[in-house]
């Protein structure tokens, strides 16, 4: 029982992070129809900048308990990367999706080396900050409080996203754009501005995910390209362009991965790709396929 709960909790923690990155991927795909491979790079970037920010904050005398604020601020500050990359993608909006995919691949390559140039190749971590909040024991399972904070934060972001997309004016415009671009443009929506905003939002979700995960692991230059294939599995299982799909898909992938690691480690990713292929073959639209939100 306690063992199962332990597995479940670590799976949900991973799912919380995966959801953030996958939600960014979904948002961009839903509105701009670009499968953004670079969202993994945003995640890695968020992780590196997050570590640097947390270390700098602690060195500057900020109480250790507040390091999570530094992480969140770092994640949010990286929003500046969004418009830059979006500007680059603007050249290929009218082209075949092959070119769009390749351009995001080019961005992945560039980011990987830029991060290597700045932070070097050795793993980079926040050290002991992970356990600053201590651990709690729930039903006989000991979990770091930090994990619970991240899960709660991710849920909060999911609810907030849902609220923004469904209830606000901006959300309505975004959904209309995803539904029918020409029509919304004809009705007076400034497409360029919407694209910049949506892409920036997608970027922030990725960088925030990276910044939040980092106390639990260490930043490595390969983490982006590794995470993108997991996020890819999430969106395929959930259905391209769907927010609910990202949520469910992240839970499926996160929990399955945790179960596989603890029971039969050889199956870890194998199982997930098998499910991905199964979903693609039987139901290419995914579990919640359709247009965004």
């Amino acid at each position, binding site marked *: 029982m306690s063992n199962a709960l332990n597995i479940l909790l670590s799976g949900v923690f991973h799912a919380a992070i995966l959801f953030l990155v996958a939600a960014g991927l979904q948002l961009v795909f839903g509105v701009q129809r670009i499968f953004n491979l670079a969202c993994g790079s945003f995640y890695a970037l968020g992780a590196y900048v997050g570590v640097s920010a947390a270390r700098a904050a602690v060195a500057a005398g900020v109480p250790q308990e507040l390091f999570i604020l530094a992480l969140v601020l770092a994640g949010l500050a990286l929003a500046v990367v969004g418009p830059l990359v979006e500007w680059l993608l603007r050249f290929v909006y009218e082209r075949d999706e092959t070119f769009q995919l390749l351009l995001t691949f080019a961005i992945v390559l560039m980011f990987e080396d830029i991060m290597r140039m700045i932070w070097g190749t050795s793993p980079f971590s926040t050290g002991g900050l992970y356990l600053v909040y201590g651990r709690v024991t729930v039903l006989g399972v000991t979990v770091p409080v930090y994990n619970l904070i991240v899960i709660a934060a991710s849920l909060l972001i999911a609810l907030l996203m849902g609220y923004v997309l469904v209830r606000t004016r901006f959300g309505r415009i975004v959904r209309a754009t995803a539904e029918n671009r020409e029509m919304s443009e004809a009705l007076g929506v400034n497409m360029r501005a919407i694209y910049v905003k949506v892409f920036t939002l997608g970027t922030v979700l990725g960088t925030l995910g990276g910044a939040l995960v980092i106390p639990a692991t260490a930043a490595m230059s390969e983490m982006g390209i590794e995470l993108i294939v997991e996020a890819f599995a999430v969106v395929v299982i959930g259905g391209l362009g769907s927010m609910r799909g990202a949520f469910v898909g992240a839970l499926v992938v996160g929990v399955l991965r945790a179960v596989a690691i603890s029971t039969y480690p050889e199956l870890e990713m*194998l199982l997930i790709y098998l499910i991905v*292929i199964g979903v693609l073959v039987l139901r290419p639209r995914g579990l919640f396929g359709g247009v965004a939100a």
Partner: protein
Amino acid sequence: MLTFFAYAIVLLGLNLLFGYAGLLSFGHALFIGLGAYTAAFLTTRFGVWHMEAILLVAIAVAVLVAAPVGALCVRYVKIYFGMLTLAFGMLFYSFLLKFYHLTGGDEGMRVLRPYLLGFDLSETPKIQFLIGPYYYYSLTILAVATLVMWRIVRSPFGLCLKSVRENPVKAESLGISVTRCRWYAFLISAAYASVGGALLGPTIGQVDPGLVYWTQSGNLVFMALLGGFAHFFGPMLGAFVFIFLQDAIMTVVPYWRLIFGIILAGLVIFAPGGLMGLIGGRARLWGEKAIGAGTR
């Protein structure tokens, strides 16, 4: 040069799928891996030393794997085809990585030196072997592969593929089985990639799962675009430039990805026809069509 020969063969196959059939595979490294691991298994586990046998088995394995995989993949086009191939590629990658006792995990497997045309060359020093007999052997294979591919794209089948790419509905109504055409193209390109992988094995002497990772597949598509996938020789040129540029840059700075990323971005934005497209000529034709096809 040896790496180039191997990749040139892979790219010939990829071009049939991407340039001629219009299907973008993001998991083609899977078949390079199949070929390379076939070479490793045959030489280290089964004591099969003849390179010719290895190549034939590599083709057989690739076709056996590609038949069901391809049958599933070619039902989809565009982004879904890319995603499905990516998933299969990563499936194979995690298999290689996790089944340690079988595949050596992330350390990979050694590829022992095979006999060429029945001659045992194990006495020859490694460098001598690679720049001597093996060099000409690979070159010959590449020449044969090029000739065969040249015949394929100029056969009625090649024309069918092009018509399927340009307008699948029309092709279907003219009596071409679109799915079957794409499936054949998938099989042929898988066999080519496998041969390339098998040739690559003895060159590097060690195969590891990194060969199959999705970024590898991305690099393959990059090579095709770099040379210009509209042209028969474009992707081969791309492989040549890619490999030598990578070597050249790596001797100066370790950051080849940054420079290659910039090159790729520049290509995608300004010269989607690739190097061949820049040189001009017929290559432009379908390069520009592909851009126009963006209006869905």
